[in-house]
């Protein structure tokens, strides 16, 4: 009986060791798969890319355009989507699941398809696009088209992150603030926003990073002026790999900035905000 009791933990221990080794091996292989191409790219063309930043005016203009368009798309997304995310986090209402599914849809459809869909709605032949053109606002083949495409593909990520950030704040904080005399909108400003701030900023960074990396829908809506992703594709198809490599390496290096910021925010965000 004693021998049996000892044998069970021993076999369990061996099983745990095998599972640990398999998990470590699988994780290492995946890390290698993710890291090797990026490392190779930076090692091969990182130096050239940094030098090109100083000499290649088109690359600098493209990076500037990308950053500005992504920032405008992010600000527009944050302003428009924050109340929506709060609504989804706080209220149970009929059709909430359908609304959430519609919001997530742009994440699932191929991005060239997103570009085609946007072209249908915002193109000069469409009612909306035609009206905007009459008002002097050009979307297709203009920076506004880049912003629209970026907003379309990245806003769902912000909504998802913001919704999670709001959900982590215990609604009883808001309840207490209401009883202390604040109407709902003031409670949102004084309690909800400060308590969910880190999560909202993290969601904004994710949205911005996703907007910066967008290619598929932008290339259909606005090929020119070129954002960084379109420029690297253009250099590759026009001049071949040697010209595309430095641009691609610069994009990878610049991507480290929002990623580092995001990681810092996530590490600092901690647990849900409760009593």
């Amino acid at each position, binding site marked *: 009986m004693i021998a049996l009791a000892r044998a069970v933990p021993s076999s369990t221990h061996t099983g745990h060791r095998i599972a640990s080794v398999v998990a470590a091996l699988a994780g290492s292989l995946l890390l290698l798969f993710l890291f090797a191409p990026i490392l190779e790219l930076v090692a091969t063309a990182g130096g050239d890319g940094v030098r090109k930043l100083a000499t290649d005016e088109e690359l600098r203009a493209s990076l500037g355009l990308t950053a500005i368009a992504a920032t405008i798309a992010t600000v527009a997304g944050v302003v428009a989507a924050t109340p929506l995310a709060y609504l989804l986090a706080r209220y149970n209402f009929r059709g909430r699941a359908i609304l959430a599914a519609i919001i997530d849809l742009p994440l699932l459809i191929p991005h060239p398809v997103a570009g085609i869909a946007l072209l249908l709605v915002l193109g000069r032949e469409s009612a909306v696009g035609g009206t905007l053109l009459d008002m002097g606002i050009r979307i297709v083949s203009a920076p506004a088209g880049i912003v629209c495409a970026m907003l379309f593909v990245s806003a769902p990520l912000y909504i998802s992150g913001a919704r999670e950030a709001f959900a982590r704040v*215990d609604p009883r904080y808001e*309840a*207490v603030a209401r*009883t*202390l005399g604040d109407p709902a909108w003031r409670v949102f400003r004084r309690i909800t926003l400060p308590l969910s701030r880190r999560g909202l900023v993290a969601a904004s960074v994710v949205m911005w990073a996703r907007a910066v990396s967008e290619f598929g829908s932008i290339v259909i809506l606005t090929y020119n002026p070129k954002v960084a992703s379109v420029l690297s594709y253009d250099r590759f198809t026009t001049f071949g790999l040697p010209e595309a490599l430095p641009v691609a390496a610069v994009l990878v290096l610049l991507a480290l900035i929002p990623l580092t910021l995001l990681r810092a925010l996530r590490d600092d965000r901690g647990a849900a905000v*409760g*009593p």
Partner: protein
Amino acid sequence: MIEALGLSASVGAFALEDVSFVVPRSAYGVVIGPAGSGKTTLLETIAGITPHRAGTLRLNGADATALPPERRSIGLVYQHAYLFPHLSVEENVGYGATDPAFARDVSARIGASALAGRDVRSLSGGERQLVAIARALATRPSLLLLDEPFSALDPRRRSLVRREVRAIHREWGLTVLQVTHDFTEAGLLGDVAILLDAGRVLQYGPPEEVFRKPASPYIAEFLGAENVLAGTVRVLGDAAPDWLAGEGTSGAHYRAIEFHGGGLTISTVGDAPAGAAYAVIRAEEIVLSLDRGASSVRNSFTGVIEEVATLGALTRVTVRTGATPLVAALTTRSAHELELRAGMSIHASFKAMAVHLC
């Protein structure tokens, strides 16, 4: 004044159903009930946080059913305090206050002013409760809703804060409704006790009445009455027997009743109809003695002690009398003086008026 008239509300699968009670203006109401009975939901419905589904709520005489929380003049204190973690203790207390000096005074009275410089996240559970009480009072509400507000305080501090809240309640004419699990607290503080279970009010009234005259055996057992006997009532008649006057009743509307249950025949008085009933006798109403003596008490039974359990200053003694054990509570000092021990013979007696039929 808090008047709930057929108030119903739902939170997920849980529902408050047809809740009606009145806590008069400037009275102190206590809500008691088992975990999950809807006590917090009731407070949140009164505060306007949980929307009502049906019924009417009147606060200080005015219909408040549709009023938003910020216009109900209510202070709400949760058991877990819910101090705003991004604000300092001082900012928490002053959050809704219109007069900072008044907020500081209230904070000092509650004993929270010494915490003013502290980070909210460094406070203990008890300290959080102090700050939460001060924060709720700093707005000078006309109604105060407290959800187990003293549960994390040490006994000495609990007694002090309880006394201070009671004093403020009297000075300001504040109407208070407090959720508590502590029956002693309910008896000490409450002018009105509301017993809630599964989202419904089982009984409400003065705490003395709720504790002494529970409306059902379930309530009696929940309220800690150890002796709940099932049996039958036999009405002896309107003509009061000679022992009725000796039980301290006027005899005007009381009838003499004989209750048979658990192998005992118990004499009592009241207006219970004949038939099946439950007799409730609180443990502290049963007197133990070594000799039967010449007591005028109608109910006296000889039995054998089964168990003597000492709980600090109180001792609970289980006495087997025929088929039914009776539990008596007496001071530990008395138990020592009587040299009570398991197996010894003892007399258990109680007045007819100490028996409540439900």
